[in-house]
C-alpha cells in the first residue's frame, strides 16, 4: 500500500543523503520526495511517498526514527490529511487542438505560465490522481516534457487517527 510519510529533520548538511541512503540501502522504494525548510530555519520537513506492506512501512518509520538527525516521523496515511502536487507540463498541440488544451487546462484549474507559437506550459496543482488524469488527457495533445514537484502533505487540523 502507498504511504505518505512526513519527516521532520535537522536542517543539516548530509541529512537528505542519510534519508535517501536508508531507502536505497534497505531496498525500500521512494516514489516521491520533497524537502523544504520549515518556519524554523534549523528544521526541514520531508514528505516521502513510499509503498510497501505493513511490515515494510513499520520498518521504514522505525528506521527513519532511528536516524540521529530525524526529529519526528508521522505516517500521514494513518490520519486525515490533505496532499498536493504540482506539475509543469509543456505541450505542443496541433493547431486544431489548441483550444482543447486550454479548455482542459481550465477544467483542471490549470494556468498557462508560458506560451509560444508551438507550445503551452501549463501549471496544474492537485492530488496525485488529478495530476495523473491531466497527463493522460494531454498525451494525445503532444507532451514535450513535464516536471513534477512530488507530493507535499499535511494532517488536517481536526484530524482523527484512522
Amino acid at each position, binding site marked *: 500500500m502507498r504511504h505518505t510519510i512526513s519527516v521532520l529533520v535537522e536542517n543539516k548538511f548530509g541529512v537528505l543523503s542519510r534519508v535517501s541512503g536508508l531507502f536505497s540501502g534497505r531496498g525500500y522504494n521512494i516514489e516521491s520526495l520533497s524537502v523544504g525548510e520549515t518556519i524554523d530555519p534549523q528544521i526541514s520537513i520531508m514528505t516521502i511517498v513510499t509503498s510497501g506492506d505493513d511490515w515494510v512501512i513499520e520498518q521504514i518509520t522505525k528506521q527513519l526514527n*532511528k536516524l540521529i538527525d*530525524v526529529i519526528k516521523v508521522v505516517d500521514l496515511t494513518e490520519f486525515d490529511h490533505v496532499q498536493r502536487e504540482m506539475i509543469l507540463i509543456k505541450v505542443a498541440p496541433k493547431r486544431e487542438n489548441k483550444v482543447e488544451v486550454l479548455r482542459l487546462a481550465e477544467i483542471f484549474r490549470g494556468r498557462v505560465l508560458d506560451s509560444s507559437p508551438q507550445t503551452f506550459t501549463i501549471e496544474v496543482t492537485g492530488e496525485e490522481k488529478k495530476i495523473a488524469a491531466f497527463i493522460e488527457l494531454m498525451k494525445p495533445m503532444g507532451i514535450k516534457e513535464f516536471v513534477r514537484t512530488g507530493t507535499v502533505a499535511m494532517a488536517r487540523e481536526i484530524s482523527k487517527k484512522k
Partner: protein
Amino acid sequence: MKMSGAEIVVECLKREGVKHIFGYPGGVILNIFDLLYDDKDLKLILTRHEQGAVHAADGYARVTGRPGVVLVTSGPGATNTVTGLATASMDSIPLVVLTGQVPTVLIGNDAFQEADIVGISRPCTKYNILSKDVKNLSKEIREAFYIARTGRPGPVLIDLPKDVTSGKTDFVWPEQVSIRSYNPTYEGNKWMIEKAARAIAQSKKPLIIAGGGCILSDASEEVRELAEFSSIPVTMTMMGLGSFPGSHDLSLGMPGMHGTFYANKSIQNADLLIAIGMRFDDRVTGKIEAFAPHAKIIHIDIDPTSIRKNVSVDIPIVGDVKRILTVLNRVMKEEMKEQWSEVRKAWLKQVADWKHERPMTYTRSDEVIKPQFVVEKIYELTAGDAIITTEVGQNQMWAAQFYKYDKPRTWLSSGGLGTMGYGFPAALGAQMAAPDKLVIDIAGDGSIQMNIQELATAVIYKLPVKVAILNNRYLGMVRQWQELFFSERYSHTNLDVTPDFVALAEAYGAVGLRATKPSEVEPVLKEAFSIKRTVFMDFVVDWKEKVYPMVPAGASIDEMLFEEKEKPAEKKLKAVK
C-alpha cells in the same frame, strides 16, 4: 583560553576518560599527532594498518564497555577504517573514529589524499560528521562519545579538516549533552513487562535466547536471575556467548546454523521464546517460516527496528535490557509464588534428554590433530579464565562450540559482518584493556593472514597475546560449503602455500611454536601460556574436519546435518541441488 582544534581534540579525549588511542599518522592529521608526541596521559598504539587500529579499538571496547578511539589520516587512512567500522556497526560496538581531512577549502577538489569518508562511512556508522568549524569541535566530540555509547551503541566518525585542527578558539566544555532528535528509550513499558511476566508464568516450555545486547547492557546477572528463579533454559546467540554461564546446567550453548542440537530442538518445541537483546539474525533462525512454530515471542531490545524486523513478535518491549529485566524479575518474584522447578520439570527433563541424545562432539584421533581438540584443550588449560578472540570461519565456530564462556566480555568475535582478520588486532586491543588477562586469538591459517602485519604492533608494545592457528591449509568453512553443496569443486579455497608461521613469528620477534601430533598440543599450549611474549602456535590440523552440526542455509533449524550422518545427508542435499 584560546586553544587550537588539535588541542581541543586532545583535551576532549582526556575529559571523556580516554587512556588509549589506536591509530596511524599521515599528513593532514599531524596537528594532533604532534601533541601526542610528549603527552603523558594519552597513549597512542601505533598499529601497522588502519584496519588493525579499528579492530583493536573494537576489542578494547568489547572488553571495557567504553568507546574505543581511533585516530587516522585522510584518504586511504580513512578508507582503511571502513571494514572496522562496518564490523563494529553490525555488532553494536561503541567507537569514536577521528579521521583527518584535507583543508576545508580543498574539499571537493579531488585533493591529494582526499576521500569523502563521511559519505563512504554513512551506512556503516551510527552517526558521522564533517567538522567544519573549530568553534563547534568540543560539542561535536562530546556528542560523538555520547551517541557512540548510549542507546544501541555503535561507531561514530568525526572527519577533521586540517584547518579545523589548526584553527583557534576559546575552549568550552559542554557539561550536558542534549540532542533533541536523539532520545533512546531505556525504561520498558510497565504494562508490557507485566504481560511478559504472565506469559512466562503460563508457559510450560519457555526458552531464553540471550544475545549480544545482554552483554552491552551488562545484564548478565539479571539474565541469570530470571533463568534460575523461574527455571528456564537459556541459549546464547554467538554474540551473546558469556552473557549466561556456558557451564551452567540451564545453558544450551549456541543456537542456529552451527548451534547445538538441543538448543535448536528447544527453540522448535518451545511454547515461549524470551528473546533478550538479540535480533533474529538469519544464522540463528534458519528458514524463517519454520522458526519456533509453537512459540509466542517476547522480544526485549533497545532498538525498535530490531523488533518485528525478521519475526512476528507477541510481546515487544523496547528499552534497556538490564532495566527491563530488573523490573521483570521483581514482578516475577513478587507476584508469582509457584515452585518453578516443579512446574518446569517435564520441560527441563525433555531438554536434558536432548542434551543427552546428541551432545556436542567430534571424532577423536591419535594420529591427526582435530581442531576441536585444540579448542577443548585451551578451555581445559585456562579453566575458562581467558579472553578469547576469533577470526571468521571454522575456527570461529569451533571456538564458539568447544569453549564454555562463563563471563561476559570474554568472547570477542565478529558476529554480524563476519570479518576475517578481526581476531588478532582485537586481541591486541583486549590485551591493552586487560593487561593481566590471558588473551588468545583462535585463528585459521586464512584469516590470520588478513591482518598479520599487526605482529609488529604486538611485539613492539610487548603484548603477550597468544594466537592459536588451526592450520588446515584451506579456507575451511568455504571449502566445507563446496564439499557439501558444490560437488567438491574446491574453487580457490586451497591455500597451498601458507607461510611457515613459526618462522614468520620469529622474523617479527615473536615466539613461534608448532604442533603436528595430538600429543604435542598440550605441551605447546602450556609453553605458550608460560611465556610472557607474543606467541604464534601453528597447529597443523586435520584438513578434512568440518563444523557440525550444520543447518544448510535456508533450511529449518531442526534440519541439521551431523558428522555420522554425513554421507546420506550429503547425498540428499546434492539430489536437492
